[in-house]
Structures are given as C-alpha cells and as structure tokens.
C-alpha cells in the first residue's frame, strides 16, 4: 500500500483501503493518463479491483441519464460496419433491403420495449446496493437467459425465444411482420431430437408474450431440441401435427 504523497491528509487508521479510492478515482475520471492506464490494467488483471470499479460505475451510472442524447450521423454506422468487415457481404444488397431491415429493426425495438415492462415487473427491483465488500451476486441472480433466434430461411430473425426451463415457459419476442395473406396463423412447435413436433400453441406476430409449456414436455426444453413456427389454420389450435410451411426455426439454447 502506498503512502499518501506529502502534504496530503492522512486517512486516519489506514481506512478506507487505497484500492477503494483508486477505483472511485478511475470511474470519476480524475486520474491523469499514466495513473489511469495503470489502474485500467489492474482492472483487467485483478477481479477484486474490477469489482470495486464496477460498483463505482453502478453508483454513478444514474448521472449518465442526465446527458442528453445527440443524433449520430449515419457515417458512424457505415464506418462501424466497414471496420467489422461487413460491407462486402451486405453492401451489395438493394436499398429496399436496407429500408426493410431498418423498418424491421425499428419494430423489433418497439416490441422489445413493450416487453420491458413485463420483465421489469417480474424481476425484483435492484433495491439497496449490497455492501461494497460483498459485491458478488446473491447466487440466485440468473443473469441473462439464453436466447434462441428463430430465423427465416434467409437468416433474418423472426422471433427471439427465451427459454425458462425452471418455470416451463418460453418468452416469445417477435420481429413484427405482416399477417399471412391467407389468414393462417403462426403456431409454435417444440421438436425434441428424433421425435415428432409438439404444439405449444399460437404465437403473436407483433407482441411479446409468454408461452406455457405442458409439464410432460418440459424435459424437452433442452439443447438439441428445435423450436419451429409454421402457418396453420386458426381453428383447432393446438394442432396434433403441423400442416403448413415452416416459416422460422432455431435450435434451443439452454
């Protein structure tokens, strides 16, 4: 532990630890280039120090909301794509595709935002922060659940599915799409490896919602199973077996 520079006030009995102050100073942004670089390298290398830094970032995070958003010029997105090496693949596509993709993305955002309320309602509010030393999570914290993308044939996402095996539910978040011109409706199927599809009922084309999985099927909510969506006549759901075309599918990730 370093001693404070001359002329500086002492910290009583040596508390609080230097690391706690260093973490706070790193987050606040008051360190000059040299000390800042040193502190960042420690953050990369030492998990105890990284946790202190994380905790300070959380404490001061509400201030980030005070900063007004500023519209980003389009060239930044173009530059990011170029830097990631994506231009060659998608650059040749038509302007229509681009606008369609943009529309779909915007709709996805709206849809995802709508489900935020549901999720926030379900997840307990963060409440008071834990004491700084006990930064580690409670253990019950599930973290982000794995998400299965149910993609169309062209690879674009149709639905995002978040499987909660414990509760036996699947949260379905659609990328909004137009209704079927023939009046058919999307039906969700769970296909365990080597078995016949089992219906999980209808899914929405524009709203996020939770699908209950029958108790006898919950064991099949496992990696290796496939979630697929077909277009079916609205009457008689859930159907015994699919009759229409598969419009989106993806392998379950647990």
């Amino acid at each position, binding site marked *: 532990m370093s001693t404070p520079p001359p002329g500086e006030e002492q910290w009583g009995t040596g508390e609080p630890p230097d690391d706690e102050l260093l973490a706070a100073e790193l987050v606040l942004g008051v360190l000059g280039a040299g000390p800042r670089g040193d502190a960042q390298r420690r953050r990369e290398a030492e998990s105890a120090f990284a946790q202190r830094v994380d905790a300070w970032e959380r404490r001061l*995070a*509400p201030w980030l909301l005070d900063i007004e958003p500023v519209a980003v010029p389009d060239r930044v997105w173009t530059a990011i794509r170029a830097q*990631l090496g994506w231009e060659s693949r998608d650059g040749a596509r038509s302007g229509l595709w681009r606008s369609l993709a943009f529309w779909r993305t915007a709709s996805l955002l709206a849809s995802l935002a709508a489900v935020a309320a549901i999720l926030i309602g379900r997840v307990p509010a963060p409440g008071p922060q834990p004491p700084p030393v006990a930064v580690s999570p409670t253990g019950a914290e599930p973290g982000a659940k794995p998400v299965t993308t149910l993609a169309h044939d062209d690879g674009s996402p149709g639905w995002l599915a978040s499987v909660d095996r414990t509760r036996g539910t699947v949260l379905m978040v659609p990328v909004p799409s137009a209704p079927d011109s023939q009046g058919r409706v999307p039906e969700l199927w769970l296909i365990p490896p080597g078995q016949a599809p089992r219906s999980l009922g209808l899914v929405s084309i524009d709203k996020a919602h939770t699908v209950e999985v029958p108790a006898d099927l919950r064991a099949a909510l496992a990696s290796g199973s496939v979630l697929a969506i077909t277009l079916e006549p609205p009457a008689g759901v859930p159907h015994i077996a699919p009759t229409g075309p598969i419009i989106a599918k993806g392998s379950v990730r647990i």
Partner: protein
Amino acid sequence: MPDSNFTNSLAGRDTPLEMLLSQVALGNRAAFEALYRGTSNRLFGICLRVLTDRAEAEETLQEVFTTVWRKASQFDAARSTAMTWLGALARNRSIDRLRALPARAALATLDLAQELEDPGASPVQQAEASTDRERLERCLRQLEARRRSLIRAAFFEGSTYEELAARIQAPIGSIKSWIRRGLLQLRACLEP
C-alpha cells in the same frame, strides 16, 4: 427516436438491452444493429459531453461499438445493467481519448459558487429517472458544496485533479482531499 425506449433500462436487469447484448455475444448482427439503433444516440451524447469535439466523439463511438461487438460476452448481467455497462464503456473510452489528445485548452474557470446551482434534469429526464438517480442526488446534496461541485465537474467533463486544481486555483492536495472525502461520503450515503 428509439432511444427513449431504453432509458428505463437502468431500472431492471433483464430488459431488452440485456437480451440484445446476449445475442450480440453470440454474433447476431441483427441484434447488434438493434442495439446500435437503440443506444447510439445516448452513447454519442456521453462521448460528446466528455470530448466536446464531434469528430473525436464520432471516432470514439465507433470504437465503443466495435468493442461491444467483440466483447459483449464480458457483460455480466449479475453485476451490471446493460445501459450502465454501455454508458461506462462510452465514458471510459472518451476519457481515454481525451487523455491521449494534446493537452486541451484551459477549461473555463470553475466558479464553485456558481456551480452550486445544480443544472438539474429536465422534467422528461426526471420522469425517466430511476430511484437510483434520486438516491444519488439526495446523497450528493448532503455533501459540502465544494465537494459536490468538484465531483460533478470531474464526472461530466473528465477533468483531472491537475485540471481542477488549475481551474479553481487551489492546491492539488486540497482538491484530492475534497474529492476523495466526498466520494467516500457518497458511498456511505448510498450504501449505509
């Protein structure tokens, strides 16, 4: 403007941003684009606030998002919210860049008396703000005025101890002491 849909992300740990980040970690480009559309304006605001120069802020934002693409798997929903993680990343990269630039022109003299008037948040922002923010502001108000002003100035402008000392024409040792004590007081108030 999709940004407004995401400001509530500070309030929950399992919101769409977290879901998008987990998809980005798997290499999902659509999720990355959705994340960009949903957060880039807010993150650009953060970069611009620290750097003030638009070209520098644009380059920094670009760096932030390429980092997000490569390192989304490092996001830990148990330790942070997505918006906190992204915002901190944007602010960190901006301050890094600021430090790498030639010394910036002297910032305006910081008049602590004037800084006492907290610019505050707009009504819209206040409506969006989580209780976390209210708590932070309440705790900040308990600090001695000069500590509060210094901490805010440091946070929003990325000023170093040296710059702050020059701006308020006080010895650097005093500045450090005020800020450090203020930070610890803040922590004690936030986590009694």
